[in-house]
């Protein structure tokens, strides 16, 4: 298990930068997810760590050794890491055993040693009975296990996974998640995992780096990301959250902030930075009442109601111009277009340098 350290890494393919001044420190044995919408640069970041792309600027170090930057570049052949590809990338003309053993044979590992390590790697992923099969004879989940075994056989300190679950159906995805977690625990190897699926990232990772437009927006534990997002992008991207524009009007005694939203003043926890702020609100923290009767409640208009099995997802708009949208969960339906009152049970205030 090794650490990974990136500082000031940029990458552009000719035109606009795909990665812009990215710095990231991954600790030994950590399981880190790179999460973000498609095109945010997360796969490029992974490929830079692997050495499959060269950074345009910045420094990349693995296990304390410089891999790229400042005039050095170590080819992927020499980085001694493992990688699991989205479409498995198993060599179709080789058996499972040969796929797993290829890296060992190019490293001139002796034959008995090789056989032992292939066996050990296949044991870990539970495929010892399939050593002589060809990749096309395996199911998607089995192929992904072979790809993982191919990494494990080399006993690398770092395994990179590029959307490894994207090609699997929902049931398989859950069992492969379990598999990755188990293997990570058993081997203690550092895992860096790329995904666009936040549920997957939350379920697996020790820490998640949320990326957008070539930058890292926030790196934190799943819980911290969910409860205390740093930017409006993270607040909106994680957990179907809404961000409502507010004025920060002062401090409450409890250490909370007093924020003004549409003329009503609420007390919420958060970070005080600017006069304007964003109030991050999750659907499950929005309570709907029939009328906007008291001080704590905001008037809102119901825009749409969708039954999601067990609960109703209710789209709401605030204000006269209906510009601010948020979502709520309710156990009983409400009729569209009617005026309701909403109560925000929880929220998180973050600075809004982008609001004036």
């Amino acid at each position, binding site marked *: 298990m090794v650490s990974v350290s990136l500082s000031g890494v940029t990458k552009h393919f000719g035109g606009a930068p795909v990665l812009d001044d990215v710095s990231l420190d991954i600790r030994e044995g950590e399981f880190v997810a790179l999460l973000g919408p498609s095109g945010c640069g997360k796969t490029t970041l992974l490929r830079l760590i692997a050495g499959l792309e060269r950074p345009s600027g910045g420094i990349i170090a693995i296990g304390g050794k410089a891999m790229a930057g400042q005039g050095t570049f170590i080819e992927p052949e*020499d*980085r001694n*890491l493992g990688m699991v590809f989205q*479409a498995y*990338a198993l060599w*179709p003309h080789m058996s499972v055993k040969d796929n797993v053993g290829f*890296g060992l044979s190019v490293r001139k590992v002796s034959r008995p040693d090789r056989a032992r390590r292939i066996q050990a790697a296949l044991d870990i992923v539970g495929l010892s009975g399939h050593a002589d099969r060809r990749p096309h004879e395996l199911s998607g989940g089995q192929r992904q296990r072979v790809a993982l075994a191919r990494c494990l056989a080399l006993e690398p300190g770092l395994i990179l996974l590029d959307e490894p679950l994207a090609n699997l159906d929902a049931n398989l995805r859950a069992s492969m998640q379990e598999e990755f977690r188990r293997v990570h625990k058993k081997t203690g190897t550092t895992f860096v995992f790329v995904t666009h699926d936040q549920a997957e990232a939350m379920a697996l990772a020790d820490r998640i780096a949320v990326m957008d437009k070539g930058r890292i927006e926030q790196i934190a534990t799943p819980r911290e990301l969910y409860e205390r997002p740093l930017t409006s992008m993270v607040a909106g991207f994680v957990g179907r959250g809404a961000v409502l524009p507010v004025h920060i009007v002062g401090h409450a005694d409890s250490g909370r902030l007093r924020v003004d939203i549409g003329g009503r003043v609420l007390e919420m926890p958060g970070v005080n930075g600017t006069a304007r702020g964003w109030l991050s609100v999750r659907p499950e923290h929005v309570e709907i009442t029939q009328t906007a009767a008291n001080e704590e409640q905001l008037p809102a208009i119901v825009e749409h109601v969708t039954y999601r099995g067990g609960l109703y997802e209710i789209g709401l708009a605030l204000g006269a111009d209906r510009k601010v949208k948020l979502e709520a969960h309710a156990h009983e339906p409400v009729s569209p277009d009617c005026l309701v009152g909403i109560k925000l049970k929880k929220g998180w205030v973050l600075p809004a340098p982008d609001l004036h």
Partner: protein
Amino acid sequence: MSGEHILLAGLAVYIGVLVVWPLGRLLTEALRPGEAGQVLGVLFDALENRALSRALNNTIITALGATAISVFVGTVAALVLRLTDIPGRAPLMFLMLMPMLIPPQISALAWIELSGPSSPLLNLLAIAPPPGTTNPLYSMGGIIWVMGLEHAPLVLLSVAAGIATVPRDLTEAGRIVGARPRRILLKIVLPSLYPSILAGAALAFVSAIGNFGVPALLGIPGRVTVLTTLIYQRLNGFGPSVLGQVAAVALVLVGLAAIGLAIRTYASRFAGAPLDRTGSRLEPFSLGRWRLAAGSAFWLFTLVIAVLPLLALLASALVPALGVRLSPETASFANFSNVLRNDAIGRAFSNSFLLALLTASICAMLSIPIAYMACIRRNRIARLLDGLADLPYAVPGTVVALGMIVVFLPPIPVLGISIYGTFAILLAAYLSRFLLLALRPVGASLASIDPALDEAGRVVGARTWSRLAFIVFPMALPSALAGGLLIFMTAINELTLSALLWSTGTETLGVMVFFLQYEGNSPSAAALATLVVAFSLGLALVADLIGRRFAPGVVPWQVG
């Protein structure tokens, strides 16, 4: 230096020596100042030459005429074979594509045997031209007819590929709005095929411009000189001293080919555009009660253009002596045994076999690293090399042969020996010209695989050579094999390059057929040609089996 750099450097030297140097030197030769030092003097001198302007004229007329025939025959055949339900479409497709297996000089010879005053078949029917008259095919019209049929498969393949991309929804939409089949064909299907027809026509035109075999066998006795035969006759008559002059002629030839290729590039942009492949293919229209009549007519036409000339060739080979009427009693295998006893022909067999084998295996092997570097690693230098490999196949073969003479006539630097007149110059020319035939299928197959297969190899620590040997090579092998077979089939019958580069001891099969006929020994020429055709058809059978088994889409008659 890493393995990858060494590999790239080696490939660059290979392409440099075999492609860039000969063609580049030929170009500078043609653009040299004249004797008095005037700019482009050699080129202008050549252009003022009356023989050249006549040959240029003849080239354009025969190429345009032949293209018209190719387009008509190829388009009609594609429409009939792909869009109707006439009986026996698979064997008809094979017969229509047979000219691709039979080299031009042998097609020309077969037509000569079919149509001349001594034609055994016409004499059998007593409709041969009177003895003593010249063969009607020794004329501009003859060249147009034989070249037109020879290149019709190019149009056929292009249009058939175009039809394959017309989705069924298009015609079904037509039927829903109430259009009848004839209207659908003329108003919906045909217009969407125009780019494919144009692309095929341009290819047929380029092939006609560069064709040497047909005008050599029909035009030289008929005194119709085209550019390729002009170069051949000049060089044969005056030797390498006229190299500058013929280089200028070659440049004109390249110019004509470039026009054709530009049209083809333009048309290809619209042809076979990646339409929705998920939709089902067009279903053949039912001909109803016309099915049998139309079928018989098309079968008859196909047999006349594809099979009858070959029967004439066989019949001529069986005639015991010139002028003797062929009958079951007079038929003899004497010509075959003469041919097989002839020393020069024996040498030609082994030379052609060796040349074809070496060219096929070297090109197939080298195409794998070039295609790997160009298509998977997307290396810029490799992509340039990949593009350069197009050149010797795009320009007429005569031009490649001239380039080889220009660079290899003087002693090779450092080594101090000249390979002119040896087996090596033939091999160099073949390697240069035919590399593309393996590079394209191999490139296509490597471009379709996930680059992650190679990256996975890098990540587990395999270096360039290991990845080439253990990952790329096994995946590219089927298409390299198919490409190599295609090269073997083409090279074994090669005439255009050989005609300019052979000398005593390095005869090839193509040259021998040409010379036997040229010397007036047409029974022997027919016998040798028959053997070559039989051999080619046998090879086609092997290619067919390999293609079906390993590399679908590489063997041309299996398209669709």
